[in-house]
């Protein structure tokens, strides 16, 4: 299979007012692969993720320089429809934030706002998304129960189902397992392994073993710079940069 570049970032810098959080990041993210981003707290991983779906713009005083290409078309340009972009690039946050509605309504939310009204079609999307997120077996019988009543791990999978329901091509995950117990984490990792057949996944994680287990490529960020970016095996077994080695062997951070 020919590797295809799904997302290409070209010299992306992000400023929060006077503070520069990212310094000219260049990264090629392969389609249908899992790319992990690691690095100490505050090094700009979340900022990088948010610049891909233009969520940084919600923060007042943010300036972004450089360009990001998805399927070779630029993300930062006047013609870009942010709604279409965010439909194409889904995001899962650190804290599972299910909406205060039923399980069904949570998953149907995205399709509804994108104009799908037909009940049967929605039913089908909800079922398929929940199945794809490995949650159908647990909640299929109580779709009308409030989503807030689910466990943390179930909520995180519900959020993933909610993202899948809008049929994105890319899924950004910002420390999706940080609030989960080991069993839920294992299930989530398994799910990511399945999802990468159909989606391109970029995942931020603080857990080095997790990055090593689930990802094909890994990027190491430090102080807003991308220190090293290569195939996961290579980066963990044979880091090129001394700082990468220090970090993955736990010498700092």
């Amino acid at each position, binding site marked *: 299979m020919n590797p295809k570049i799904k997302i290409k970032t070209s010299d992306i810098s992000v400023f929060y007012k006077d503070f520069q959080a990212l310094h000219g990041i260049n990264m090629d993210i392969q389609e249908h692969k899992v790319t992990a981003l690691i690095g100490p707290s505050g090094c700009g991983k979340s900022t990088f993720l948010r610049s891909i779906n233009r969520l940084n713009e919600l923060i007042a005083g943010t300036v972004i320089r450089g360009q990001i290409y998805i399927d070779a078309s630029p993300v930062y340009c006047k013609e870009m429809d942010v709604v279409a972009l965010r*439909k194409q690039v889904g*995001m899962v*946050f650190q804290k599972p*934030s299910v*909406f205060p509605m039923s399980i069904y309504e949570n998953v149907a*939310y*995205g399709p509804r*706002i994108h104009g799908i009204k037909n009940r049967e079609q929605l039913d089908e999307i909800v079922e398929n998304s929940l199945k794809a997120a490995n949650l159908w077996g647990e909640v299929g019988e109580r779709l009308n129960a409030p989503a*807030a009543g689910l466990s943390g791990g179930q909520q995180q999978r519900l959020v993933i189902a909610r993202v899948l329901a809008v049929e994105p091509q890319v899924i950004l995950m910002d420390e999706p397992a940080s609030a989960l117990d080991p069993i839920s984490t294992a299930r989530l990792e398994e799910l990511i392994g399945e999802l990468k057949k159909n989606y391109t996944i970029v995942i931020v994680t603080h857990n080095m073993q997790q990055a090593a287990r689930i990802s094909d490529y890994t990027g190491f960020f430090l102080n807003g710079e991308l220190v090293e970016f290569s195939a996961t095996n290579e980066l963990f077994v044979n880091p090129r940069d001394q700082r990468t080695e220090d970090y993955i062997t736990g010498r700092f951070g």
Partner: protein
Amino acid sequence: MNNRTQEITVGTMDAAKLLAIRSFTRKNSTLGFNRDKLVETILMLNAAIFILAIAAISLFILIRGLPLIFKVGITDFLLQLEWNPTAGSFGIGTMLAGTLAVTLTALLWAVPMGLATSIFMVELAPPRIGTLMGSLVELLAGIPSVVYGFFGLIVIIPFIRNYLGGSGLSVLAGAIVLGVMILPTIINISRDAIAAVPLDYKVGSLALGASHYQSIRRVILPAARSGIITAIILGMGRAIGETMAVVMVTGNSTIIPHSILSPTRTMTSNIVLEMGYASGDHQAALFATGVVLFIFIVILNLVVNLTLKAGKNYGAN
């Protein structure tokens, strides 16, 4: 008094003197009595007096009003349209209709406007404008009701008379004045409810490709639902209970209002208009009107408690 002067001068004193005072007060308190105990007793006494006062007032209203309601019959008292207390007919049907007409008409415009204002303040306005509007709302809440009534009398009534017809003294005039008066309640409570919706919901919705407007309508407002319902009900309670401004602008005739330009009398107006000269059964009938108001408010408060509880169970605020 003594303690007060000590507190004030502490700032200019050196540490040694401060310590001396501290040990002195402590010694003083162990000598006479236990200060904590005293404070506790005072607080408890306060609470007890408060509860007793409420119970006494409620009981008094019920004792003075209920017998007449039973004498006339509950349905007759509530639904009879004939109010002629000196001739022995006690039906508050017209006033019940008047209260409902004025209150509901006021809610009809004040709820959408209040809700829109609070959404604007939280979601759209730049922080400085939001704060400024907050102060304006506080100002609105601080104006005495007689001033609103006066404004209605001088500005709104001639306007209605000249442009819409009738005498101007009307349900509409009452609803306009009342609506303005309940706006602060509606705005403040719904604004707090909207502001309390976790930012995660909004970001989560935007990240799914929703527009800001869609996020407000489909996630933020539903999440703030129980707070918004509370705002509406408390506004309604305030509208039902308001008296002064309403008496001044509604004309106070005891007829069923057939249009929003008809004059009308509310239950509260009825009490304030006739209490000066009422005696015997007539006075009892005014208390009975008070009982009906009282029950209205109790029911509204119960509804508020239920919505808040239901909201909590659903994971919304």
